[in-house]
């Protein structure tokens, strides 16, 4: 090429990076210089070459490439694969828990346990909030356990009113003393104390259980 000073300007012209005035000057030169015109057209040919996709593009198995990418994504995000399964399992568990809690006796048991826990708690009582702080909580959602207002133990729930306490019968007590003096004490002549070892008093003063020692040393 005879005009090396135009090389760079031709390259910029081809690239569209020359200002209008400079571009006009180069185009004028190209009209008069065959060698530079040839250089410019070859440069345009190079551009066409660069814009063509490489022929290897038609050889590559892009479906396999996409599968490889998908595989890598699933390896990088194993949670995403299990997420639907976990969501399903969680839903089933939640439904089962709601159904179980909905059974009336379960609800009663839980409420009873909770009330016992509250009544036997030994820590300091919870500090109550002042009224102006409570007003902000009025709209807050609260978890409510639906159940009977007052829980009574099952054994005493339907019990009839207690019967009047019987009075102790003095004759029965005297009869017991006579029996012991006549029948039991003579069987233990060496004993300095009463042979009655265990006396169990019931709620009825006229019913007394007495365990008497045998002569062999045991109780009957």
């Amino acid at each position: 090429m005879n005009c090396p000073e135009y090389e760079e300007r031709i390259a910029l012209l081809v690239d569209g990076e020359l200002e209008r005035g400079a571009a006009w000057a180069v185009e004028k030169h190209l009209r008069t210089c065959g060698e530079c015109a040839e250089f410019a057209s070859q440069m345009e040919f190079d551009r066409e070459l660069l814009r063509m996709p490489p022929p290897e593009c038609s050889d590559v198995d892009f479906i396999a490439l996409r599968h490889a990418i998908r595989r890598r994504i699933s390896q990088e995000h194993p949670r995403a694969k299990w997420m639907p399964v976990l969501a399903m399992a969680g839903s089933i568990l939640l439904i089962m828990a709601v159904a179980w809690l909905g059974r009336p006796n379960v609800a009663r048991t839980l409420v009873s346990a909770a009330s016992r826990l509250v009544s036997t708690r030994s820590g300091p009582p919870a500090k109550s909030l002042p009224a102006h702080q409570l007003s902000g909580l009025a709209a807050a959602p609260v978890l409510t356990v639906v159940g009977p207002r007052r829980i009574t133990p099952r054994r005493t729930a339907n019990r009839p009113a207690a019967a009047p306490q019987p009075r102790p019968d003095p004759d029965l007590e005297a009869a017991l003393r006579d029996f012991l003096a006549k029948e039991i004490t003579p069987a233990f002549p060496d004993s300095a104390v009463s042979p009655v070892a265990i006396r169990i008093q019931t709620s009825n003063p006229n019913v007394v259980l007495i365990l008497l020692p045998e002569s062999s040393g045991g109780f009957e």
Partner: protein
Amino acid sequence: MDERAERESPEAQLLSRAKSGDLDAFEQLVALYERRVFGLALRLTGSVEDAKDAVQETFMRMHRKMAQIDSGRSVGPWLYAVTANICHDVGRSRQRSRLVPMDEWAANRPDPAANPEGVMHGRERERRLRAGLRQLPEKERAALLLREMEGMSTEEVARALGSSAGTVRSQICTARLKLRKFFARREGESK
């Protein structure tokens, strides 16, 4: 579908769906760009295997950083910038492992298909082009390819390569001249 979604281009809609975790939409974006990304990577690395790896890595990076892509713009410039960076890393690792790609070996052989009429088979023409690109410094090659293959503006290329617009303009101009001189030399040798 709301008014905004209707105004969006099909590509922007795919990107929005892919951002919300739709893997099928992501795959459609991959299908839209895979050939162009592969072509760019092939000319940047000079090796089919390296280019395939670069394609995978580019789209994996796209999947990881989907949220960073501006839905209002085309995905292309973002993808090509990532491809150029990945190919740069591939080149550095190859330098460390001292591997020589086949195309470099081919560049030093006389071109049997070159003739004065300039009639060349597509593959021979491509082989000659890649041999010419191999002679260019990496930045110049990347700037020229982003401009010509992907039609990116000077500013887009500058952003992709982390350079200034002035530097990119100069790099592209120099790359064109070097490539033209390489071809002229090869044609002279074959005559």
